[in-house]
Each structure stands twice: as structure tokens, then as C-alpha cells.
């Protein structure tokens, strides 16, 4: 893992110096396809686009059974991205088993997968099912009887995620062509799923057999769906291959471009560069110098940066929240952007401002859990102890007006006791004798 990180870091450095490769994580891309399903030459525009993005593309044809696919050499990942065209056959199932895809994805490799209704690509289906994306099976494909053309068209309005594809006014009436046979998928309600393109309300899936229940109905189905795992690696599934083909390329270019950018991590990649919390005040005393105690005023700051395809730039937003938790949150503060961070101008500094720690001691977690659909997840947690007041940190009794009455009574008792003793001693003895004689007569 650590090795991978270094490689990534190195690649990022190289990228930023040469301004050549555009993905934030790397450019080594493997494309797996099957000649029996499709001829790769019909996708030349797509590959040119990849080249424009300066990806280092390796292609692997799988109709020959002797071909081996190695995603890893020992534990080192060989590719940063994997593009899977529909492939037939059992051989493929073994070579690219769902477990291998999961492993590749968990180790930081992004996956762009395409399926078509004609070919049952079991490993891809199994892999997607693990992510909570359930593409329609081989027997079913998407239909929309309200559309005149045989090709299925989707409008920009059906796009759901701004971080994947931002709708601007100029693009308002764009239509995307998905060709004739399209798969639609059901999505479960996992929050890591990034729904991208929704099927139209009038669409449905159906198979050859009329009795078969439809897989999706109306806007329940999706034709493009993304997924981002907790390690911020992305997967995207597209329910049609023809979507990428040269025939429709001009029409779809915008969306294809954005999908590549998002899936292969050229955009919507953010990270925290600097997290700190200190005592409030100009000298910013840290926890290590002076541990927090209850009702101290502290300030929490976090710096966020974003990959713009060439370099890291400040990430500006108004919904970054900080939480102070002890199992349950005690504070949830929306932080304000303060401009570029002083130490690192490439990131934006967010601050909670000064806030007072709760009057409760214990272990508290200072946490920024920024998870927005389509953006990289940020989870920065720091557990710190907040101690109680020490015995000499309470106000003294004479500083509390309420205590003055007790202090006064103590003083009165002491003074009157001394006065009594003095009076008792100085009284002549005859007086006490007088009392005792009185008793006898009583």
C-alpha cells in the first residue's frame, strides 16, 4: 500500500511538473475487449480522446484463450485504470473474476465497465452487484415506446450529478445517443453510489419472453452509474457500448469526456492537506503544549485542495462541516472559507472560528467528515482528551458574591467566640458563685 502511495505521489509530481498526464493518480490504462463482440476500430474516436487525455493505453484482446491478464505483479498494481468492454466466455470469467476486480479497485485502480444486453459478462455483473449496481440480465434490454427513433436518446436533464457533469445553459438541449440495445440497472440505496444518468419516465426493460417481469420501470432504472469506494477509487458502469462508438461519438463527446475525467480521477478529486486545532488566540497554543480543559476556547482549521486536471488548486465550498463528537456530536459547525492557506497556497483554509468546548470532560473526536456524492471523501479525525478543571482552577470563594454571606458568618462566629472567651475570662469569679447559690434555693 505504502509503495503504491509513493508511486502515486511520484506520478502526481511528474504530472504537475510536465503538465502532461491529467489524472490525479496515474495514466497506465488497460483496455480489455473481445473481437468476437465488437471490433475495436469502431471506437477509434474514443481511443483518440484517451490519447488526448494523455493516457498510456494498453489493449488486450481476450478471444484467444491463452491470453493472460495480470493486474498485479506480486502486490504491485500494474495499471491505474481499467476499461472493460463486454467480453464473452468462461476464460474471461477466470481471468477477470469479480474478486480480482474488487481487489484492483480496493488497491486504487479505477474501473470503467461497459455491458450490453447481448453478452452476459458475469464477472462484471458480479462485481457491480457487490457495489450495489444491478444491471439488467442478458435477456432484458431497455425500451421507450414514446421515442420515435430506434436509438435510445437521453437528454441532459436526466443527468443527476453535478460533480460528474455540470449542466450549463449552453448544453441545455443536448441529447445523448445510446444506440439500440441498452441495459438499465437497479441501484440500491448505498450512499457511495453516484447515480449519473437516469432512464426516462416512459422507459422500461423487457425481454424476449413476454411473461418475464420487467427489471426496471421508468425512472427507477439507470443507464450510467458511478461508485466511489471509501478509499476514493472510482468505478463507472455504462449500459451501452454503442454510446462510445464512432457513429455517435460527436453527439456524445461531451458526456464521454466528463465520464472519463470523473472515473479516471481527473476532476472532482479533493483532499485535505492540513488539519489542525489549537487554543484560540493569536499565539495559537497547540494541544501538545497545553492540553484542553472543559470550556476552553479552541479553533479548528482544515485546508482543502482540488485537482483541476493540471495542478492542485484551492477547493472552495460553503458546506464543509466540522464535528466535535463523543459518540454523539456535541458541535456541528459549518466552517467558513478563509482564502488560501498560509503554508500551502494551493489549498483553501477553512476555519470554525473560536468555539467553546463543552462543559464535559472525556475523549472527544475532532472530525471533518466531508462526503459529497461525486467528490472524493474527506474523513479527518483526531481524538483528544478534554480534562476537567483542576482543583485550583475554580474561582476562589471570595470572588463569588454568593459566598460572601457564608464568609461573613464564619468571621462572625470566630470573632464572637474570641469575644466570649475574653468576656468569660475577665468576668469576676463571684458572679458564677452567685449562680450556684441561686440553684440551691431553686
Amino acid at each position: 500500500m505504502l509503495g503504491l502511495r509513493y508511486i502515486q505521489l511520484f506520478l502526481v509530481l511528474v504530472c504537475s511538473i510536465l503538465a502532461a498526464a491529467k489524472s490525479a493518480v496515474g495514466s497506465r490504462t488497460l483496455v480489455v475487449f473481445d473481437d468476437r463482440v465488437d471490433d475495436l476500430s469502431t471506437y477509434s474516436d474514443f481511443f483518440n480522446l484517451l490519447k488526448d487525455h494523455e493516457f498510456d493505453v494498453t489493449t488486450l484482446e481476450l478471444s484467444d484463450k491463452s491470453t493472460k491478464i495480470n493486474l498485479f505483479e506480486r502486490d504491485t498494481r500494474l495499471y491505474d485504470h481499467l476499461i472493460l468492454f463486454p467480453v464473452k466466455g468462461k476464460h474471461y470469467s477466470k481471468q477477470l473474476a469479480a474478486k480480482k476486480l474488487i481487489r484492483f479497485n480496493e488497491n486504487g485502480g479505477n474501473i470503467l465497465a461497459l455491458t450490453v444486453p447481448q453478452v452476459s459478462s458475469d464477472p462484471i455483473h458480479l462485481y457491480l452487484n457487490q457495489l450495489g449496481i444491478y444491471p439488467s440480465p442478458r435477456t432484458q434490454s431497455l425500451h421507450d415506446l414514446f421515442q420515435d427513433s430506434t436509438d435510445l436518446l437521453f437528454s441532459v436533464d436526466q443527468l443527476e450529478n453535478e460533480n460528474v457533469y455540470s449542466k450549463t445553459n449552453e448544453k441545455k438541449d443536448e441529447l445523448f445517443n445510446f444506440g439500440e440495445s441498452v441495459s438499465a440497472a437497479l441501484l440500491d440505496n448505498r450512499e457511495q453510489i453516484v447515480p449519473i444518468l437516469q432512464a426516462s419516465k416512459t422507459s422500461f426493460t423487457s425481454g424476449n419472453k413476454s411473461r418475464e417481469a420487467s427489471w426496471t420501470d421508468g425512472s427507477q432504472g439507470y443507464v450510467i452509474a458511478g461508485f466511489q469506494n471509501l478509499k476514493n477509487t472510482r468505478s463507472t458502469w455504462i449500459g451501452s457500448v454503442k454510446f462510445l462508438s464512432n457513429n455517435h461519438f460527436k453527439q456524445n463527446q461531451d458526456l464521454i469526456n466528463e465520464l472519463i475525467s470523473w472515473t479516471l480521477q481527473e476532476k472532482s478529486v479533493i483532499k485535505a492537506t492540513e488539519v489542525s486545532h489549537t487554543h484560540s488566540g493569536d499565539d495559537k497554543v497547540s494541544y501538545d503544549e497545553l492540553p484542553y480543559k472543559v470550556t476552553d476556547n479552541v479553533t479548528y482549521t482544515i485546508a482543502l485542495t482540488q485537482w483541476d486536471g493540471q495542478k492542485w488548486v484551492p477547493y472552495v465550498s460553503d458546506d464543509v462541516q466540522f464535528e466535535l463528537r463523543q459518540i454523539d456530536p456535541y458541535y456541528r459547525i459549518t466552517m467558513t472559507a478563509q482564502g488560501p492557506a498560509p503554508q500551502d497556497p494551493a489549498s483553501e483554509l477553512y476555519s470554525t472560528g473560536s468555539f467553546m468546548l463543552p462543559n464535559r470532560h472525556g475523549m472527544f473526536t475532532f472530525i471533518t467528515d466531508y462526503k459529497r456524492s461525486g467528490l472524493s471523501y474527506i474523513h479527518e479525525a483526531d481524538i483528544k482528551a478534554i480534562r476537567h478543571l483542576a482543583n485550583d482552577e475554580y474561582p476562589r470563594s471570595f470572588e463569588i458574591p454568593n459566598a460572601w454571606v457564608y464568609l461573613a458568618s464564619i468571621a462572625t462566629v470566630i470573632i464572637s467566640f474570641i469575644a466570649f472567651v475574653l468576656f468569660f475570662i475577665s468576668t469576676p469569679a463571684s458572679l458564677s458563685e452567685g449562680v450556684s447559690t441561686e440553684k440551691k434555693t431553686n
Partner: protein
Amino acid sequence: MSEVVEKVVVPDNAVTANEESKTEAGKCVSWVQSSLKTLIFIAIIVASISSRLFAVIRFESIIHEFDPWFNYRATQYLVNNSFKDFLNWFDERTWYPLGRVTGGTLYPGLMTTSAFIWHALRKIGLPVDIRNICVLFAPAFSAVTAYATYKLTCELKDQKAGLLAAAFIGIVPGYISRSVAGSYDNEAIAITLLMATFMFWIKGLKQGSILNSSFAALCYFYMVSAWGGYVFITNLIPFHVFCLILMGRYTAKIYVAYNTWFVIGTIASMQIPFVGFLPIKSNDHMAALGVFGLLQIVALGDFIKAKISEKKFKVIMWVSVILIMAIGVAGLFALTYLGLIAPWTGRFYSLWDTNYARIHIPIIASVSEHQPITWPAFFLDTHFLIWLFPAAVFLMFMDLKDEHVFIIVYSVLCSYFAGVMVRLMLTLTPVICISGAVALSKLFDIYLDFSPIFSTKSTGTKKSSFMTVLTRGLVSASFVYYLYLFVHHCTWVTQSAYSSPSVVLPSQNRDGSMAIIDDYREAYYWLRMNTDYDAKIASWWDYGYQIGGMADRTTLVDNNTWNNTHIAIVGKAMASPEDVSYELLKEHDVDYVLIIFGGVLGFGGDDINKFLWMIRIAEGIWPEEVKERDFFVNQGEFRVDSQASETMKKSLMYKMSYNGFPELFPDGQGQDRVRQQTITADDVENLDYFDEVFSSENWLVRIYKLKDVDVEGRDLSDVAEFEAAKNSKRSSNKRPQIELRV
């Protein structure tokens, strides 16, 4: 050991000659007397210390059991930091994530005493490791206890009884049980202070001395700083005074002694942060406050009585008594109702109703120390003193001076309490020793007196004198034999029953030689070396102090059972199915779960046997989610084999305990040696959410790690299912049952 007894017997001859010690010969006798006394004391000290060293000799110099580990850790903290740091110590490594205000919730007397000794030894050029001081602390203080007991008994009878009492307390198992080397617990110092406080109290009372009563108050303060059992003194002394007043024995001496003790003692005890305002708030302390008030009224009445005629006084008395009673009772009710004075604590209720704790506060009942005592334990702990004890109480009634009333009150109260809670045997033991010594010395006064033989003027015939000598000789000899048996018994009990550190378990090899089972330390050391410093360990609270002390890792709950809900969380995690436990433990940032499993070794005190308590405590908080009934089979049995209930088999504790257990046996039929039941592989379901990371040599300690959250956001049980499936599996054509997307 038997030597000691002989020496205790010897002085009786010497002391009888005490009366004529004014002549030259008398001076010589008194010199011999005092040197003998010194010798006897040295012998007693040697005996009491050495008999407590069995633990060190047979095992090693190690801190024992559970609570001592906390005391040891706190002492280390005190030695490494300043006293002020210690006082304000916030311990973030226990009770995660609540933390514990340790400095304000402990009795610092023990730690400060050992730290003081440590510093003093360093000052004189003896840099002793703090661990050794802690280990040898209890034996050293047992010697001081012997001396304090001697002084106390001297006040009751004479030096002869004192020396006997000192010898008894030195070696009696009832006291040794809590004060062997390594048993670094509050009781180690508390019994010493208990005796010292009582000694000064009796002295102060007898003489009406402000000085001695002040000493009693200071000892009381020290006691308060050292042990929660100080409440015993807080109630016993007022009760004594109350009895004396009822007996019409009010004197100015009582007034002086009690007021001095109460005022100084109470104000001093309030300086301990953990006690704070309890002396004026808690009902446990109300008796002392009430008697203080009563004494003022009695004193006033006494004064008025001396001034006015008897007839008038009677009227005044009745009116004022009724008035005071009414106001007092109403006031107590009102204050309790308003919540200004705390209601009685659960431990207090369980003193009166032994079933109270079992029903209402399982956390108290789950501690073995809080169980009622068994009859044989009395004999085991005190041997022949137990039957001398009633005789002695009877003899006290014959004298019935103020100090004898004290011992009677003490013995009556304590006998009852010891019957209710095992741990209170400890406070009963000293009074048994004292009474036993008084009875025995009274007996020896008569029967060990052989002077008639030597007396020149024979009053009776030769025959009767011979018979006297014979009977005296017989009785004395039999009691000397009893003493010999006593010493023998004490030594045997000490070495066989009370010297095990319980951190290391003794066992025997096949050839009969001793073997040591060291699984606990093996596991704690593993934790220390292989886990992150900030790792959080969930375990049942019994092991909290040990994990903190030996493994130095953060724990969720420990033996300082101050937060029942937090303990119930761990109980619920153990009693719930894996997925529920996993959520709960993840919420508390737990990294590892540690359990004790005795099935392989046959160790009865393991977590499965404690499991019912976990369930009960959890049920107290979540009666809907954890139900004790579900863990029993239909016949009402608590089973762990194939007939065990579904809930039982699904529970985390069961799965963790028996994970991989049947596979240990060649035929797959796991024999649980504690519960004598057979567990097969079919009974034990897989663990999907936890990984076994460590099992000690004899599987006594098993440590599991919580798996990471799945990066794809799946349930870990689904992940396990996916991982177990074959690669060539085909995707399903069935529409998945998924929840509505929101």
C-alpha cells in the same frame, strides 16, 4: 512459627510478678520483662511478615489480582508526576470515551504512603523500585497492625492479652487474605488505621483526652484517605456513644472525646476530593451527625438537670425529646425527599437484604466479594478463635466498662455484616483476634498460675494442691496445643489458599511438580507489543485494571464500576449477534475484544461463566434487546453444547469463545472442561466481523480484532459470503430485493 506461641506464653509468668517490682529484684524483673517484650515483638513482626511472603517465594514478586493493578498504576503515576498532577489526574486511557477523573475518584492514602516511602528511601540513598515497595507494602503494614492491636488490647485488659492479640492478628488468615505480599490493596493499610483509630478512640474516651481524640481523628482522616470502608468507623463510634448514653453512662469525658473526634475528623475527611461533601449529605454519615447533635442536647440536659429540680426537669425532658424526635425525623424525610441528602447507596441496602442486590443491582451482586459468606469460611479464616469469640464477648459483659461496650458493639455489628458480605470478614477478623486474646489471657491468668506449688504457706492439703496443679497443667497444655494447631492451620491456609497471585495460575505437571500457567501475562504482553498505543480494548470489566496496568492500553470499562450503563454496553456487545455488536463496538472506536476462555484448561472463572451477569446487566438497560430467558434452553438450563439456545449460539461471546475449539480435538468433538459439555463444529458459527489475532498458550485469553469497515460499504457478512463463493459463479438473473432508493 510455634516458637512465637511459646514466647507469647512465657511472659505471663514474668508479668504476674509485676506487682512486686519496686525492690532491686523488681527492677531486674522489669528489665527482663521489657527485653522479653521487645523480643516477642520482633518475633511477631518476623512471623507476620514472613508468612505473607509465601506468594513471593512460590511465585514471584508480582502485583496480584485486579484492584492492586490499578493502585500500582496510580502509584507509578504519582511517583512520576507531582502530587498536584496526581490530585488532578484525568485518565483518558480508561472508560473510553468518558475518561475517568481518577484523581478525584480514588482514595489516595495508599499511593501517597508508598510514594512517601519511596521518596524517603531515595533520600537516605536507597533507590528501591516502586514495584518492590508496592509488593512488600502489605506485609510491612501488617507489622504495624500487630502493634496497634497490641495497644488497643492493652486498653481492654492488659499487656498479656495485648501480646496475644498482636500474635493472633499477625498470622490470622482472615487478615492475611488481603495483605499478602503483592496484594497491594487499600485494605492493606486500612486495617492498620482501623486499629489505630479505635485504639486512640478508646484512650481518648477513657481519659476524656482531647489529645488522644485528636489523634483518633487524624487516624480517621488517614483511614478516609485510604479506604471506602471508613464508613464503618463513621458509624461504629457514634453507635458506641449512643449505646453509652442509653446505658446512662454519659460523662463529660464522652462529650469531649466524641466532639473532638467528630469535628476534626469530619472536617479533615472532607478534604479528600472523593469524599467531598458526603459527610453532610450522604445518609451513611447521618448517624455520626445525629449523635453529635444528640450529645449536645444530652449535655444541655445534664447542665439543666444540675440547675433545676427533678420534677421540672422531667417535664422539660419529655417535651424536648418529643419535639426533637419530630423535627429530626421530619427534617430527614424532607431533606431526602428534596434530594439534598443522598439516598442510601445500593451497597448499603444489600447489607440488610441479601437479595436486594441480586434483584436490583446486578453489578454489585456480580462481584464475588459481595456474596454472603459460607460457614466454613469463618473457621478457615480464624480457626479456634471463632469459638473463643463468643466466650470473650460474654467475658466483656462481665466487666462492661465503656471500652468493653465498644468491643461488644463492634463484634455484634461486624458479625452480622460479615455474614452478609464476604469482604467484611476482613473487619471482623481484628475483633475476633482481640476478643480471642482477651478470653485466652483471662484463662491463662488462672490456669497458667502455678504459684501455689512454690508458695511456702500451703493453705490446703498436699493432695488438693496437686489436683490444682494437675488441672491447671491440663487446661494450659490443651490450650497451648490449640495455639500450636492454630499456627499450623494459619500457615497451611496462608500458603495454600491466600498466596496465589491469580495473575499466574498454579498447576501440576503429570509428575506432580509445580507448573505455572502464565496465559494472562502472555496475552497482555502480546497486546503491549503488537497493538497500536492508542488501541481500544473491549473486555469484561474484571480485566480492565489488568489491561491498563500490564498491557498499557485504553479500556472501555474497568473494575472501578462507576458507570453501570457503560458496563452494560460491553455486556450488550457480548450478548448480541455479531452485526449488532460490531456496530456498537465500532461506535466506541474499539479495535480489539479480549475474552477469557477456560474451556481448554478447565478454568472455572471464565467469561462464559460470567456471561449471565453480562446479560443481566445489559438487560437492565436494554430489556427489549437482551433477554436473559433467551439464553436458556427450554428446560431452563444454561447450556453451551448442541442443545444451546439459538440466541446463545448467535451471541458474540459464544462465537468468540468456541471459535476453532472443536477443531482442537482430533475427532472434532470439543470437550469443554469447565462445563463438561461437548461442542461440535456444527454448533459454532463463523465469525464474519472479527478476526482472531491471538490465543494464549492454553487458550485462556483470546483476543479478536474488529475487521475494518468494508470499503465498498457492504455488510461484512455479505463480504464473507462473497469471498467464500467460487470464482466461476454466474450472475443471477433474479431481480434483487433492494430497498427503495432515497
